[in-house]
């Protein structure tokens, strides 16, 4: 059984075949290629402004950041970074020395989304459309979790004679059951590029689907993110430490800690000013200021209840937990390890003698490190070591979930174009 959500005009829902959608998208390729990239950026700037005004989207989680990300200055910077400094390569051949160079769309980009972040589909869809690819996007859940509202606002956006509704003719958003092997295969075989977001088993299954020889796969996830606070930070200005902790707590709260960029374990250097329990208390103070969560499923509730009990009972560990049910939890220990993610405002603070002890835990599995160090040179030293070990991002607390390019070490738009040389 399948459910089609948003498809180009004139394409009827079909239960067992993606072909009508794929054929419709193919017909939009030429039209999309003709839209100048500047017009696309202007259209997305209008979309950005509407997102914060429109009642359908303004209170959607992550919308504020999405709106900022869609701003023209940001998109231009992103395009320049991805396209050798010149977004015009997307509009046709540009002189390059004695020759010409162009960035052509890959074709059809098929996207399998994870269901953890409502705005996540936009961070694949927009780059793919900017690179003038047609898009077939499969949602994780039958309920679109806000994606439908975002697309409705995009459809109403306009800049000059470029309308959002026309742009969306080049995209189809679908859902079908993840076990539907036939539809997954059809989607994979239609793709020129596959973008896959999700957990380990989903990635394994989707990358195992048959695909065409030239089809590239871009995989996001699964990843784990951490924080590190050094003793200089803790022993320096208490206000700055408080700001850093407040930033970490924002990173913990956003998307209920389900994004791969959300910190799960934060390593703290032993110091002369604050005990681990006292630092935990500082996290607790900021966690207690968060608004209530919209709800919580029984499984995650039990995970929280279990981890609280396990940490409370262990002589070597400690825990600070909210009194109002399974709201927030700070688990304290001295184990130099990456703890099993519980999510939903559950943070593990682990005391270490030095951040050097954390280095053996770093690998390409670790996506983002929130770094709260007292000294800028130390941050760069840490970032050199961490990135060498495979870490994709090192950022200040508070910025961990801010989607940016590069993401997971990839310049996405760059991977969604084919570079073509012309030597006349």
């Amino acid at each position, binding site marked *: 059984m399948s459910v089609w959500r948003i498809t180009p005009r004139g394409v009827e829902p079909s239960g067992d075949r993606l072909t009508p959608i794929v054929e419709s998208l193919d017909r939009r390729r030429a039209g999309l290629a003709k839209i100048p990239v500047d017009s696309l950026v202007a259209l997305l700037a209008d979309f950005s402004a509407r997102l914060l005004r429109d009642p359908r989207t303004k209170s959607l989680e992550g919308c504020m950041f999405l709106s900022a990300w869609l701003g023209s200055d940001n998109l231009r910077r992103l395009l320049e970074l991805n396209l050798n400094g010149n977004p015009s390569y997307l509009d046709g051949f540009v002189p390059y020395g004695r020759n010409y160079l162009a960035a052509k769309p890959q074709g059809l980009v098929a996207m399998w989304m*994870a*269901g*953890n*972040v409502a705005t996540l589909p936009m961070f694949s869809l927009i780059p793919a459309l900017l690179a003038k690819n047609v898009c077939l996007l499969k949602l*994780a*859940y039958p309920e679109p979790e806000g994606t439908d509202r975002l697309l409705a606002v995009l459809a109403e956006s306009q800049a000059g004679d470029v309308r959002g509704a026309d742009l969306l003719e080049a995209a189809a958003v679908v859902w079908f059951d*993840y*076990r539907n*092997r036939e539809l*997954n295969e059809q989607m994979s075989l239609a793709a020129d590029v596959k973008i896959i*977001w*999700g*957990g*380990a*088993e*989903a990635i*394994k*299954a*989707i990358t195992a*689907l048959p695909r065409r020889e030239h089809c590239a796969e871009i995989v996001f*996830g*699964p*990843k*784990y*993110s951490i924080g590190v606070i050094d003793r200089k930070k803790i022993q320096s200005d208490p206000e700055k430490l408080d700001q850093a902790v407040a930033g970490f707590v924002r990173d913990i709260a956003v998307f209920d*800690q*389900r*994004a*791969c*960029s*959300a910190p*799960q374990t934060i390593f703290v250097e032993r110091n002369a000013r604050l005990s681990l329990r006292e630092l935990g208390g500082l996290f607790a103070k900021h966690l207690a200021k968060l608004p209530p*969560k919209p*709800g*919580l*499923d*029984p*499984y*995650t*509730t*039990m995970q929280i*209840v*279990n981890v*609280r*009990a*396990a940490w*409370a*009972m*262990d*002589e070597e560990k400690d*825990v600070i*937990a909210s009194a*109002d*049910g*399974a*709201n927030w939890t700070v688990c304290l220990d001295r184990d130099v390890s990456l703890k*099993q*993610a519980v*999510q939903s405002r559950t943070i593990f603070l682990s005391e270490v003698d030095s951040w050097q002890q954390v280095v053996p835990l770093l690998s390409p*599995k670790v996506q983002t490190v929130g770094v709260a160090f007292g000294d800028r040179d130390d941050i760069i030293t840490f970032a050199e070591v961490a990135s060498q070990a495979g870490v994709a991002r090192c950022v200040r607390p508070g910025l961990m979930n801010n989607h940016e390019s590069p993401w997971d070490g990839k310049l996405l738009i760059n991977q969604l174009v084919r570079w073509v040389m012309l030597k006349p």
Partner: protein
Amino acid sequence: MLDHSLTLEQQVEALIRGPQYAMRQAEKDAVLTTILRELCAEIAENCPPYDRFLRRLGPSSADWQTISDVPPLPVSMFKQFLLAAVPPEKIVRELHSSSTSGGQPSRIVIDKTTAFRQTRALASILKEHLGGHRRPYLVLDAEESAGAGDTLTARGAAIRGVGNFASETVYGMNKQPDGDMAADWPRIEDFFQRHCHEPVLLFGFTFMVWTRFVEQSERRAVKFQASKAQLLHSGGWKKLAAQAVTKEDFTRRTANVLSCDLGGILDFYGMVEQVGTVFVDCESGNKHAPAFADVLIRRPYTLQPAEIGQTGIIELISVLPTSYPGQALITEDQGVLVGVDDCPCGRLGGYFRFTKRIEQAETRGCGDTFAQAREIR
């Protein structure tokens, strides 16, 4: 009401010995809270991990006003910790969960007092559902499952507990060399022939009763003349749900195989972490807590007690254990609070229904690094 001149032990004894379903919920809450304040403090004194749990995660026991104030210990902690409130020389038995879902089994240490209470408590509950007389007992399991010696599984404890009502015990299954169970049809047929239309008692684990007895009897087109049979069964609903077998299907087809009334098929809920405390279906299909125990349905997230009609996480309260901190346990099951003090069966107190095991319903996204995610098949 509770007689405050009695010692803690005497108070618990009085609850085990007295009528099991005659206390209104408010009265029962007050009685159990008073006992729990003292009992949990004693357990904590002798079980340092539980002491830390109470100190770090709950209000002081002196401040407990209702049973919902008692911080519930997750049952999974018995897999992670050996939680003993008595010295090793006082442990007479260790109970183990069957660990059917994989992973570490729970380990529950039992001292003489707890063992004694569990046996009599189970007898006290079953007497109210089955009557006091002994009768022929067919165990739909193998004799090995009943165990012997210092360790016992949940299955073994239940088989033995129900055995207190037996005038004769017959094991209707044999353990195969590969560990699987197979019905011993000649022995089963002989049991029913000898006790045709007499009151008989049967016990088995739900999934095994279904797959090894009911389905195979149907396949063999066999029906037994056991019109006065009472079958107690428990556990295994997750596997049955996977086969799309509902509780109604189970009851109807099992009663058909035995030629007995639907009311003769009694599902009960209980766990190895609280042996002796079982929640048997009443005539209205609801489960009631006996006098020495209670059930709380806690809402996910807030963990506050559910209102009538609300679904939540099942928490079990029992004042039986003296050797381990099993007084307030939050389970990994969901149930619905059906009502309080007004079940049509006449039993007082809150009553509930089990709904399902708590399971991870969906992939939790790219941040769920180490957990299992769903797979395209």
